[in-house]
């Protein structure tokens, strides 16, 4: 685990956690755990550390950063879900290890792993099942990113319909939830999804 350096500065009667610094594990360990090369890890870390000198990203910063890519809409809800997906140990902040592990799966993982990650993203309460409500939340978050000025005009029920479509496809036994196996099976049978999984491989 990373080393947390907390400096306490006694300000009158308050103990202030003035600076939390997080140092990531060594380069070798990360190299072993992820599928990035040494150089790639270096580039990634330099960028990461530049933006977040303290070594961790909290949710607010995360939302800010992600929102900058989608100027027309409101990306904060989706960023929230993303944050939870990256923050695997659920400690409220994304450290460099979390960041790089997530990226490793997304960019260099097998299709199975990527689908797993996507399932994990949709499963908001991490109970192993995607319910319609969870899917609806995710869908609304995605549509929120589009913003108002779209063609065709976004309607209220568009996300809901999209969810219906999704469940039609994925929920084989029609029990109202999608399990991980149903999800992976269905995606693997869909060649479009399969093909698109290789889309972002050369991102880094």
């Amino acid at each position, binding site marked *: 685990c990373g080393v947390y350096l907390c400096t306490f500065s006694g300000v009158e009667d308050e103990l202030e956690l003035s600076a939390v610094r997080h140092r990531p594990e060594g380069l070798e360990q990360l190299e072993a755990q992820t599928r990035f090369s040494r150089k790639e890890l270096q580039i990634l870390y330099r960028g990461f550390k530049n933006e977040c000198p303290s070594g961790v990203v909290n949710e607010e910063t995360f939302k800010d950063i992600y929102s900058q890519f989608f100027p027309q809409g409101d990306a904060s809800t989706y960023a929230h879900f993303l944050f939870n*997906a990256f923050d695997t140990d659920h400690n409220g902040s994304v450290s460099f290890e979390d*960041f790089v592990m997530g*990226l490793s799966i997304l960019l260099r993982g097998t299709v199975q792993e990527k689908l797993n990650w996507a399932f994990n993203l949709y499963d908001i309460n991490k109970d192993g099942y995607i319910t319609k409500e969870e899917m609806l939340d995710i869908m609304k978050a995605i549509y929120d990113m589009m*913003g108002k*000025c779209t*063609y065709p005009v976004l309607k209220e029920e568009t996300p809901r319909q999209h969810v219906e479509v*999704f469940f039609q496809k994925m929920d084989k036994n029609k029990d109202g939830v999608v399990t991980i196996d149903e999800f992976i099976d269905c*995606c693997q049978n869909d060649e479009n*999804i399969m093909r698109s999984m290789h889309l972002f491989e050369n991102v880094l």
Partner: protein
Amino acid sequence: MAAGVATWLPFARAAAVGWLPLAKKTMPKPPVDNSSRSDEILYVNVSGVRFQTWKNTLDRYPETLLGSSEKEFFYNEDTQEYFFDRDPEMFRHILNFYRTGKLHYPRNECIQAFDEELAFYGIVPEIIGDCCMEEYRDRKKENQERLAEDTEANEASDAPLPPHSTSRERLWRAFENPHTSTMALVFYYVTGFFIAVSVIANVVETVPCRPPKGSVKDLPCGEKYQLAFFCMDTACVLIFTFEYLMRLFAAPSRCKFMRSVMSVIDVVAIMPYYIGLVMPENEDVSGAFVTLRVFRVFRIFKFSRHSQGLRILGYTLKSCASELGFLLFSLTMAIIIFATVMFYAEKGTKGSTFTSIPASFWYTIVTMTTLGYGDMVPNTIAGKIFGSICSLSGVLVIALPVPVIVSNFSRIYHQNQRADKMRAQQKVRLARIRMAKKGTTNAFLQYKEDRDRDSDSTALCVKNRSAFEHQHHHLLHCLEKTTNHEFTDEMTYSELCMTESVGFRTSRSTSLSSQQGAQNNSTGCCPRRARRRAAMRLANSTVSVSRGSVQELDMLHVKTTSIPPQTRSSLNAQADDLKLNCGEQDFTAAIISIPTPPANTPDESLPPSPAPIPGILRNTRATAYTHDTVKISSL
């Protein structure tokens, strides 16, 4: 957009994997990244001082000199470095901007030199960080004012008029800047003199003069030398009226001029005379008329055009108004309280001067301001006690706010200036953010248009778009495909809203077909990009918003293809078969119907090929897994 987030773009793109299982349509191909992935250290030599930095650092801001290909002009082959013949001290700050994303203004540098450096390196000063922005702006304004004063001083001495000004403009200029011409100066002094004369006359005419022969009573001079004073008054009023009319004529904006304070003062100063002329010599009315003469004293305010100090005082009072108002309010409260108490305390005494509460107001005011005229004094013990409390509290109530007001005034004055500055900065900042957002959106929309237009050629990278922009646009494109909606600009959106609201609310498709031309009951889909916009408008006017369990014609959709090449050929192949009546109105009504669970199982109803099959249409779910262009028909 802030290219500082360029480092996060790979992450945002990776996170897009989350959209893939949900996407309604197929994803577009990612842009080809020709640039070498590895990072290298660049050497920048600025007048002998060598700086080194990563290439990626400089690439963060592609619209500046160092971030774009413009720096290649400064590349020195022999020494394998970029050489700039500029100030190395300043360059340090510039480079720090790339590193940290924040531009700082060094306080010990000349503002103009700094501005010049920024201009050279292609950096806009607006991105100076908050920490240094105020200082920067103060210095800049100071500098500008100093320069402006110098130029004004130069100008004022020789005062060349702009060559093609009308006489009206010249007149206005003469009024506003009396120093521009001798005539204006003469006029300025003459009006000043007459204002003084008028005010003095008003004052003197009430002084008692020796009575005329044969009478005992003292008369005020005004009545003794009535004719003389009347002539003087007439002369002054004539001059003032003339001046007012000239100003009104010369003013660039008459309404604004008439609403300004000075013109109101002018009017108020001359009105009583005219009213007096018009009014008959009636005893009852002349009483009111006398009151009007009081307004003549307003002429003294006309001096404020001649005195800078008066203007400043007026302005400061205006800006201090809330403090003064509060003082007045608290005084009023205290007065009422004490007056009431004194009245009831003195009620019983015989011959008391405290006849009513309003009458006690006078006593309270006189006591609180420690004047103590003595015309009203309390006689009862209770009255005396309360009276003393009143005078003591008066000292506090009056003496305390005055220094507070003075310091408030000074604070408010400075604060107002700073608040205005900050408000302006805030507006600028918000505008900048909005513009940046719009810029990104517009860049993306432009990219889409270009892509649509040159989709045949592979000249997608013909424009100067950085790799970052390519990837960002691809990301936005993926989002569009996921949700099957497109980004548009405000204009188009408002049009859409309007047309939808007046659209027919039919759920039948026949209206559509009748609109599009009867012969187009084709099953073809021939997307014609050129007609897209016009067709859209037409289509939208007939968009049927049908609610109900089976939504057949949800929207009209002509999608121009952004299909990757391999499917494009297949599209063409298919389209050829179906090219029935693709005449001029080759619009294609694409229906995306999303019904409630259809009878078919999902797999089956997904036609793998794009061939539209008439008849099935109602329940066809046009999912995007097959194709970009969604077709329909059965019209």
